[in-house]
């Protein structure tokens, strides 16, 4: 058994009642944290990781990530994406996320269940990156996805058809089933421009999928951007709502009553509004994104006030759109405290993934996923950007090269 002590750091356990950065050493045995130690407490036969001067937080969890959608040049038409191109970018994205302190991602969808394959490669030790919790292809209604985006989904009509696809997805090995229950915010199907976020899958179709997932003991998550879609999902028993851009009082009351978390994904909206044009999107996309962002933030604030649980996810399509930006936006634009933002990216995200007890906290029994920061993110959430090192399952997987200071 390999023993490692992370020494000299100040540790934040976001699952605690009133967490602060406290001097504490962490004993790691193989891939798990096995004890909290008093600073300096001796352990026989243990390696040391020097965390002096660092603040230690749990590895972050991006609750909404698409490994195969990051950093592909928007000018390359979708039909010209090759698997090699996508894989190249996926591996790059996973590396970037891991380096920024994200040790687990919930893949919110990938075409042809490629995220399930990537997860298999990770488990075989072939590919590194944040641990993937995979959704595979989205279950969407017939003609639900925007033209050019269809490949990420399997399209269904009718509850039996939805049920069949859910069963096939489950057999393929997804960790959760992703439903696409409303149009994209842009309103698209093909040439049709509907109202933003118009409801797509019917409630009985959604319910059939939820029933199958419940049988198999896995959760569902639903892309739902309008109040009608959100309410349908909640009545059908969906376990987590993605985006939740436009919410009315009834939707918020239902979210609170059923204790269903939301993943607002502010980062993608911010990124489109800020760098969209630069990245080759049209002006109108950037403008729509900014308008939609304001609506999403207002909904988020009301949901939070009603006690709805919130997890952090990026929906990133580029590698600037990191989870630390999501946390920053939660604080600076949505009025979260830094602790609330940190919890969204750790404790609550772990609940959403049904991995509580495994990840999202720094406690004995948890996987040794942790992040060493230069300064305390509870003072300023922007300190999440100053990463000194990252451990995943007890292994150092990123360590900043310190600039050598010469006289």
């Amino acid at each position, binding site marked *: 058994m390999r023993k490692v002590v992370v020494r000299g750091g100040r540790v934040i356990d976001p699952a605690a009642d009133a967490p602060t950065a406290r001097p504490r050493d962490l004993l790691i045995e193989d891939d798990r944290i096995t004890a909290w130690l008093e600073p300096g407490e001796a352990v026989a036969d243990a390696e040391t990781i020097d965390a002096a001067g660092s603040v230690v937080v749990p590895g972050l969890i991006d609750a909404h990530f698409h490994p195969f959608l990051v950093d592909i040049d928007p000018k390359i038409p979708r039909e010209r994406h090759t698997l090699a191109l996508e894989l190249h970018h996926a591996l790059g994205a996973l590396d970037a996320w891991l380096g920024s302190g994200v040790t687990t991602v919930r893949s919110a969808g990938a075409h042809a269940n490629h995220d*399930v394959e990537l997860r*298999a490669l990770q488990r075989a030790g072939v590919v590194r990156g944040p641990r993937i919790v995979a959704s595979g292809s989205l279950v969407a209604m017939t003609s639900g996805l925007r033209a050019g985006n269809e490949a990420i989904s399997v399209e269904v009509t009718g*509850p*039996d*058809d939805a*049920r*069949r696809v859910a*069963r*096939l997805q*489950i*057999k*393929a*090995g*997804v960790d959760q089933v992703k439903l696409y229950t409303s149009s994209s915010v842009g309103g698209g199907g093909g040439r049709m421009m509907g109202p933003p976020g118009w409801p797509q899958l019917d409630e009985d179709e959604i319910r059939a999928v939820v*029933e199958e997932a419940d*049988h*198999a*003991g*896995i959760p569902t998550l639903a892309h739902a951007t309008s109040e009608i879609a959100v309410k349908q999902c909640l009545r059908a028993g969906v376990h987590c709502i993605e985006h939740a851009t436009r919410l009315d009082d009834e939707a918020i009351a239902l979210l609170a009553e059923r204790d269903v978390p939301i993943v607002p994904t502010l980062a993608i909206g911010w990124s489109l509004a800020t760098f969209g044009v630069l990245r080759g999107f049209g002006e109108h996309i950037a403008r729509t994104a900014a308008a939609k962002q304001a609506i999403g933030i207002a909904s988020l604030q009301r949901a939070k006030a009603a006690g709805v649980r919130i997890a952090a996810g990026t929906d990133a399509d580029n590698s600037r759109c990191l989870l630390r930006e999501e946390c920053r936006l939660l604080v600076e634009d949505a009025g979260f405290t830094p602790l609330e933002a940190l919890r969204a990216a750790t404790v609550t995200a772990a609940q959403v993934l049904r991995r509580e007890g495994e990840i999202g906290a720094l406690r004995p029994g948890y996987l040794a996923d942790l992040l060493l920061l230069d300064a305390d993110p509870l003072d300023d959430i922007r300190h999440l950007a100053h990463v000194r090192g990252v451990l995943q399952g007890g292994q150092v997987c990123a360590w900043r090269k310190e600039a050598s200071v010469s006289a």
Partner: protein
Amino acid sequence: MTTVITPEYLVDGTGAPAETGMAVVVEDGRITSVVPAEHAPSGPAVERIDAPGQTLLPGLIDLHFHQFLLLVERLGGPQEQTFRRDPLIATTILKAARAAKIWLQQGVTTIRDAGAPDNMAVAMREAIADGFTVGPRVVASGALIAQTGGMRAGNEDHAVEITGADEARREARLQLKAGVDVLKLYGASSIGGGGGRLVGPPGWPQLSVEEMRAVCEEAHKADRLCSAHAVSTVSIRNAIEAGVDWVDHADFLDDETIQMLLDTDTPICPTQAIAWSLEHFGEDMGFGPHIAKMAAEVSVVATEALAKAYRAGVRIAAGTDADNPRASLAQECRLLTEVGMSPLEAIRAATLTNAEILRLDDRIGTVQAGKVADLILVAGDAATDIDALKRIQDVFQAGERLTLPLVDLSAWGYA
């Protein structure tokens, strides 16, 4: 031609205590009378079979056997890759015929084949009935009716996968036309929890109540039966609610579900023998150690639940689900005594109860005048020593005495 069998002990299958000094008279394949030995017919035209020290019983009935799954060879590799169906269909069928003979020589004169690819159990039923090959009477299930993606990767050939009540109904109708006697629903995942890459909770519920109900309705319209493979509590309840005639396996029973079984008078067929054999001999058979561990874990829970169901008065059938000769019906009976049944009760489960469930109790299941002379002789007093069932001396099929063994298992290392 008249045959008179005079065993030391007679156990008639009804659960009544053993009798001594009796003679069973067989004419033209039927039992014509059971009388005190001194009143039995005699003379040159009467064949007498004296069986001192032996018990005569009804031929056993295995309510859950798969002719197309029994192997005596070691598995070649990890089970996921090398499933039992041989690439050559002829080999598959010859192995099934061998399996039928092995069960017959172990005293099983009737089996319910609980599911085979392409409704092949129906073909076995006819081949045996027509005398092309020797084997027990077969009551046939067809391909399992499973949900889309329901079968573990590699096992799909045993099932037809459906989604929706209408698809389920269509498949039920096709199977009835193909001659299936008992429609078999696959109402839960395997114990291993698998679908493909998914390892879900053991025996998680599959098929909806509506899908199963459609199949039950079609079976009952045609005066046929319907059973369901069900493992987890919810899957057992779903099957009962859908109206199955009995529940196969029924591993995770809670009090409420036991009450449902009682209220609907639905029997269960627990199949402990398979788990027992995997737990103790799985590695010899070429399975990985995790299989033995899983079998052991499930059987702890299932055994406790079964004992509770027995004490509550649930009707309990005997079936093996055997994939190897050790998981015999005699072993299943032994395991039934370990949850509290008396040997006579365990024998009743494997004879009259199973005959009642299959609605064949007018013909088989007891040693009584008028029944088909499916009989076995075992060494010792089976009413006090259930393991006597493992010491088969003679098997009679409709009065015909078989020459044993039909298949010599010692070549494969079985005792």
